[in-house]
């Protein structure tokens, strides 16, 4: 069965709304790989580092009564909570969409007819997906952002590096997709 994906125009509008809402709630531009990286790096948030950072703060800025405190915490709890919940929310949102929209015609683990042709076994698909995720992570960190950070936030705010990044990954992805579809006879 040919999967019926959501209209790319509608998906684009919805994705843009997510990016705008995220910026409105947190005050920061959306970047999923950056959020993932930050989540993994929370291990450095220990008391030793914080104590050293406070000492460095006083050395850099001096004794400033209420520095950063006069206006309350540097980041409001709702801000930080919104950022922490974004990643699990993204996964749960995709799952909810799948459960509530059975008409998409996608079956669990198939990833569409092209992937089924290239990778007939589920094990191979899982392996390729995992490997792709690792490579994507490396690429995103090397490029300073991923499709959301560069493609949504960076381009929208006129970052030159983001235009270059989007041009590169868009060209490569489109060419690769065309080749795969051609070989698959679609």
């Amino acid at each position: 069965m040919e999967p019926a994906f959501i209209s790319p125009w509608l998906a684009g509008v919805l994705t843009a709304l997510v990016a705008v809402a995220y910026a409105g709630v947190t005050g920061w531009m959306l970047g999923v790989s950056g959020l993932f990286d930050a989540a993994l790096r929370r291990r450095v948030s220990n008391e030793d580092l914080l104590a050293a950072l406070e000492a460095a703060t006083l050395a850099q800025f001096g004794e400033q009564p209420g520095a950063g405190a006069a206006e309350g915490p540097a980041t409001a709890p709702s801000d930080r909570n919104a950022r922490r919940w974004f990643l699990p929310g993204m996964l749960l949102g995709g799952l909810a969409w799948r459960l509530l929209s059975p008409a998409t015609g996608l079956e669990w683990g198939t990833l569409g007819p092209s992937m089924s042709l290239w990778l007939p076994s589920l094990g191979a698909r899982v392996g390729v997906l995992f490997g792709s995720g690792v490579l994507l992570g490396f690429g995103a960190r090397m490029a300073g952002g991923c499709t959301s950070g560069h493609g949504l936030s960076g381009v929208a705010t006129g970052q030159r590096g983001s235009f270059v990044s989007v041009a590169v990954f868009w060209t490569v992805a489109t060419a690769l997709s065309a080749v795969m579809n051609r070989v698959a006879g679609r």
Partner: protein
Amino acid sequence: MACPKAEGCALYELFTSRALLGVWKTYYCLGQHENCERFKRSETGQEIDDTLLPNGQSLQPVKQR
């Protein structure tokens, strides 16, 4: 303009954890991020140590009792 690299910055998380540290965020992340050493290194693709401060100095963790 806010620093576009803040979300992936290891120190930004710390800057938001205590009120005293918010001055870094105000001065660099929300202010002159182009003067932040971490930002400049990320722009040139250099490795950024978790202990590198925005002013270019290295953070020396101290053990607390």
